[in-house]
């Protein structure tokens, strides 16, 4: 519908008011089209672009985007120079962009929930392995999760054996997991991604029990611990 509507329409006095001020013409890019009093809106808009990390100077492409959106200094040159270069870091996440629905995002993320049992603790917990990026993160999270079961007087995650220690009880827990083939393995042996794919459940086993049942083949750091058939750990 053209802006200059007939007088019967309720919008007409709105349009006539505005039309006096506006000159909607086809102009070249870069021509200032904002009338006075718009500076606040421009600033406000840039502010918001910053909130969305669009004005972030960390990547040249987002800088250019910020410029386009503010309508300033528009020239094809600045467009060409900045745009399209992939940034080294993961691209800034803008809310709702790209337009992928949460259901789909979550499904692709994998959402790898596994049960975690701790010897001596009455309840199992479930953790989503996908939210961790390394063994350290996972074990730290497990510590926090099971802290309430034990009195804590300081603990640490060791370098080599990745043991979780609770010095007060002088108990050591060895983190183990059951893999796709049903074997119980020591957490930490395989690369993290491989662990993600193959881990079905986790058990923090008391060291004393582990020593008797897990049989190392080679160097403790790099080997896989396998359960002897007759000492089968009860799978919960």
């Amino acid at each position, binding site marked *: *519908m053209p802006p200059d509507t007939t007088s019967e329409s309720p919008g007409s006095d709105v349009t006539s008011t505005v039309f006096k001020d*506006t000159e909607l013409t086809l102009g070249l890019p870069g021509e200032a089209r904002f009338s006075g*009093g718009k500076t606040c*809106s421009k600033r406000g808009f840039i502010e918001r672009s910053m909130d969305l990390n669009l004005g972030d100077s960390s990547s040249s492409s987002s800088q250019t985007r910020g410029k386009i959106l503010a309508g300033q200094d*528009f020239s094809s040159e600045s467009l060409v120079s900045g745009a399209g270069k*992939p940034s080294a870091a993961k691209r800034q996440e*803008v*809310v709702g962009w790209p337009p992928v629905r949460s259901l789909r995002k979550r499904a692709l993320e994998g959402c790898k929930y596994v049960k975690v049992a701790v010897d001596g603790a009455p309840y199992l917990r479930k953790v989503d392995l996908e939210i961790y990026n390394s063994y350290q993160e996972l074990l730290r999270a497990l510590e926090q999760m099971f802290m309430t079961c034990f009195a804590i007087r300081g603990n640490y995650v060791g370098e080599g054996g990745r043991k979780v220690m609770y010095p007060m009880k002088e108990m050591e827990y060895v983190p183990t997991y059951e893999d796709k083939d049903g074997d119980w393995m020591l957490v930490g042996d395989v690369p993290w991604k491989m662990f993600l794919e193959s881990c079905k459940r986790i058990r923090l086993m008391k060291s004393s029990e582990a020593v008797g049942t897990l049989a190392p083949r080679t160097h403790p750091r790099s080997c896989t611990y396998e359960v002897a058939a007759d000492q089968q750990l009860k799978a919960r």
Partner: protein
Amino acid sequence: MQRMACSFPDEVLEHVFSFVQCDNDRNAISTVCKSWYKIERWSRRRVFVGNCYAISPDMVIRRFPDVRSIELKGKPHFADFNLVPDGWGGYVAPWISAMAAAYPWLEEIRLKRMVITDENLELISKSFKNFKVLVLSSCEGFSTDGLAAIAANCRNLRELDLRESEVEDLSGHWLKHFPDDYTSLVSLNIACLGCEVSFSALERLVGRCPNLRTLRLNRAVPLDKLANLLRRAPQLVELGTGAYSSELRPDVFSNLSGAFSGCKELKSLSGFWDVVPGYLPAVYPICCRLTTLNLSYATIQSPDLIKLVGQCQNLQRLWVLDYIEDAGLDAVAASCKDLRELRVFPSDPYGPEPNVPLTEQGLVSISEGCSKLQSVLYFCRQMSNAALMTIARNRPNMTRFRLCIIEPGTPDYLTLQPLDVGFGAIVEHCKDLQRLSLSGLLTDLVFEYIGTYAKKLEMLSVAFAGESDLGLHHVLSGCEKLRKLEIRDCPFGDKALLANAAKLETMRSLWMSSCSVTFGACKLLGQKMPRLNVEVIDERGTPDSRPESCPIDKLYIYRTVAGSRFDMPGFVWTIDEDSAMRLS
């Protein structure tokens, strides 16, 4: 003339009208004369309300006293991408209460993007004795307890479809609430449910419902249970598998393969979470009959995808991840000559670099090989004007074109120019285009093309595009059939909006977020346009606390005959005639 119109008894006219189902036609019939208006409103059985706030339940009931089927839509489309804050609205409760009293014979409720509670579901299950169809598309607010009520009380239920809704999983036992003598299930879609449903209950349900034609399982249903389900329902037409992974075992495989072969009517497949490629050949025997294939959750690589899709010569609809690659789309273009709809989703939308060789080339191949292609949704990382022009010339019959170039503001990768001309070619050649989504680097020029050529366009989605109000003005003044316009992160402000205020009453709705519209303009619009609800959505607090010339966060404008709504949360402001007077 008048005598002729009245010379038929009402029953005859009603019978004639019963052959007219389309809403627009029935609306036209009702304007012929008072008598036809009366007969038509008494005999209208199906009502579609595209915006639940455009009209009140009472108004609908007053006009149409004997409705059997209702469809309601709530939140704006951008709610799918978390742009609409929680609590905005879209509550179905007032509709259910009103209809429970007025429409005891209601059979069908279809909702999209609405909030429905367990109480609402229970009320539905107890109020409508002949209730048959419940479709909850992208809805939320309910749990499996609500589903239990539906299962327990709706003795004539035919269809329960939860497509993509957010359901609180309290327990998988809700399925057990279907009575043992309940046998009328025709369609069940629980694909969105996270929890394990009681499998034995599911098996028994499937086994005793001979008319079951659609069964969409959720991820929690393991593959080794699928064969048994299929053997109980060989008449299935549409199947969604659960997780499609298991240890590779020949006996499981042959059982599954046999079960699939027994399903002679199967035309649609979906599901395929966690796919183990070794089990895909189990479906090969039925591929030639498939018309719809949804592999959008199947994280398998191109060669496996090609082997599968290559056998689906009758495919009309394909949804797939970009793992298919350009090579896979070449194969689709060669094998699937009947393809009408293609959707390619991104496997790694947030990664900084492309993770698969899927480019504009794949889409070009499809446009060349699939002459019936009408509908496209395509996520990719590079595009060129040349490709878009080729696609446009190849497929002037396209009606839906949604392109998402993942990085905002990406130019033509060959020329580094904006993609204006490419999209311009799309709207110029595809004269019947109804839906368009833009992306990439775009100036006001693309909007000029759209305003000039896209005369049948009904829905337009714009993000990170344009340079000035002129862009918005082109669209609002040029697109005669425009009903829905959604815009985010564009430098569009007050001028085009105010200059085209009257246009807004001819549309269902306009969404603008992170643009340059000021509160002052919103107030003006709200004051002057009583048949529009102008909703300012701003979680930063009341817009009055900022200068009037400062841009608002989000704006949702929709036409309505029901006035301001009563269920607005604290972060939504509307301006009506009263409040505008108070403010000044």
